[in-house]
């Protein structure tokens, strides 16, 4: 029996301000696998992550996003979240005046199996903070306000572990991540994989984050197109050769199409 993938992006074309930025993108991720989406700056990797999550900043012009057998295209981001998709942000926002703990409680409210009463919630928070080596005093701070890059990453990983999504998309395109932040993300991924049968899509151009990680498939994106898909060996190859050959090939294709 053919297993239908957990996430199936089929023929996805998308635009922002009437400019097409994703062209006919196909991406399949079976449940339980770890995939990596790589590519040079501006290739559209983050855009794809945001589109899967339902960011209204982008318009889905064609194609489908099937998740867990359900078409996501018309669902708002909160419904996609509740269906089991999680997107960790490259640059999480700041919400002044809202304590982190209040926000976290709102994210689990009404989720079967995740909603917790006060005492249980506090115990769970204590556990997660310990696992992420995070000071529980953070929970009383305003969401994101005055947090360092590493601290913001910890809060993203805390939510990943709290929400236990079926699919976690980790947008780590920011090459400016310092060693601490990298460590936090690696640890978060490990814990997520250990605690659930989770599925991962890691968006990055920094291969260091992928060390010690069993990667199933690698997708390479250039100029809004997925141009290559292969197994984990592709990571080492990219590490050595970079994206130049993919970019050249894409340029040649474009030139050919224009002819």
């Amino acid at each position, binding site marked *: 029996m053919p297993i239908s993938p957990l996430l199936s992006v089929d023929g996805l074309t998308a635009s922002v301000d009437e400019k097409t930025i994703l062209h006919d993108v196909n991406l399949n991720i079976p449940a339980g696998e770890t995939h990596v989406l790589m590519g040079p700056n501006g290739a559209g990797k983050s855009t794809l992550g945001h589109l899967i*999550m*339902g*960011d*209204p*900043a982008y318009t889905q012009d064609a194609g489908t996003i099937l998740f867990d057998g359900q078409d996501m295209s018309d669902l*708002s*981001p*909160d419904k*996609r*979240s*509740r269906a089991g998709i*999680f*997107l960790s*942000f490259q640059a*999480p*926002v700041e*919400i*002044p*005046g*809202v*304590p982190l*703990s*209040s*926000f976290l*409680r*709102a*994210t*689990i*409210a*009404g*989720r079967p199996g995740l*909603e917790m009463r*006060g005492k249980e919630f506090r115990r769970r928070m204590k556990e997660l903070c310990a696992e992420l080596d995070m000071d529980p005093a953070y929970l009383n701070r*305003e*969401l994101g306000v005055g947090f360092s890059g590493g601290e913001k990453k910890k809060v993203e990983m805390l*939510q990943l572990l709290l*929400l236990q999504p079926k699919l976690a998309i980790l947008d780590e395109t920011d090459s400016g991540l310092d060693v601490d932040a990298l460590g936090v993300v690696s640890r978060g991924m490990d814990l997520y994989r250990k605690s659930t049968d989770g599925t991962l899509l890691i968006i990055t151009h920094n291969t260091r984050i992928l060390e010690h990680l069993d990667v199933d498939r690698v997708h390479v994106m250039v100029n809004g197109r997925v141009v290559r898909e292969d197994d984990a060996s592709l990571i080492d190859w990219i590490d050595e050769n970079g994206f130049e050959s993919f970019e050249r090939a894409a340029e040649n294709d474009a030139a050919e199409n224009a002819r």
Partner: protein
Amino acid sequence: MAKQRTEVADIDRTLYDITDSEEGFERLDAGLTPDIVREISERKDEPEWMLDFRLKSLEIYRKMPNPTWGPSIQGLDMDHIVTYVKPNTDQQATWDEVPDDIKNTFERLGIPEAERSYLAGVGAQYDSELVYHNMQDTAAKMGIVYSGIEEALHEPAWEALIRSKFMTLIPPTDHKFAALHGAVWSGGSFVYVPKGVKLDFPLQSYFRLNAKGAGQFEHTLIIVEDDADLHFIEGCSAPKYNVANLHAGAVELFVGKRAHLRYSTIENWSKNMYNLNTKRARVDDEGEIEWISGSFGSHVGYLYPMSVLNGRKSRSSFTGITFAGAGQNLDTGCKVVLNAPDTSATVETKGISKGGGIQTFRSSVVVTPKAEGARVSVSCASLMLDDESRSDTIPAMDVRAKNVDIGHEATIGRIGDDKIFYLMSRGVPEEEARAMIVNGFANPVAKELPLEYAVEMNNLIKLEMEGAIG
């Protein structure tokens, strides 16, 4: 499953919109003439000097122009405003003696309940007159006086003091509606806190304007002597009518040396109200005035509580929140005059506009040459909830002293789409995400409001989710 509906709603006004019958009330003719002023004075049987004061104020009123710098008050026609409406009762000292209709109104507003649970005294005004005034015995034994100001005016012991203070901080020449107030003022509270006396529980006066097309002109006079401490709460509301109502009260506060006064106001007038209110405090050496101000109601509001820091090292803080919804133009802020060495003032305000409402923060800070070493910090933030609403900030500063430390910070913005997306991506529905952001924005100021007015804030930002916002 917990109830989750959450939204940034207009203020739910059902509670305030219930009107009472006016049977047995006495209404003077609409408009403003010396005869009407004489009749008000006569009914109150007040000293001759007060009648003279009223008539002089009326003359000043007639000569002064309307303000030309703020929201339009063209819809306010003084010829149609009834300046005096006497309810069908005299002032009572127990709620049982207050007529049922009026008593029920105050019950709905939660006043007697608050009185039982944590207030040291309550004054309740209905239209032009106080209908209830009472203070706990413990406070009376401390020598604190809390009564109707007209009642106090009939006591020889207080008449001279009131005469020496009345409308000295806000002279009738100050502006047109101060002059109007001087002519037709009626009701309001008088508080005297003797030297060194510190009252742990607040006093509260509540002003309810039920009469259609009427004005309310209460005068609040508070004297907090040296080393004394008081928290005074003022609340006001009215049902909505399709004609203009007017509120032109005056609040004069005298804060002694090392004394402390916290003055909290929740204004929730209906959206046909012109709120042209004036409040002023004078603070002596090392004394402190704290203004807490919530402005949620009114069609048009001009409200700028003013602190005059006359004593060395005296302090003022102003904490305010204004919410302007559909059909509202609220021009609020504060004024501070730093007029002695080492004085300090802080201003922190939050403004929210929604549904086409206009919210303007306006402030004036004056540091006179006497105020060497003064410190001032002004911070005002505004949030517009949609594209049709407007927020402005108009801060003015006039600094004429040496060695001063002045800080100013202003932000105006909308709710960022990126923030909404972030919250939604974690499973928070859109309306709830908006409410969370607005709540977070308002929270630092809203938490300063008196506890019992949590209902106002809950109406403002409906949050029915179980324990979601701490």
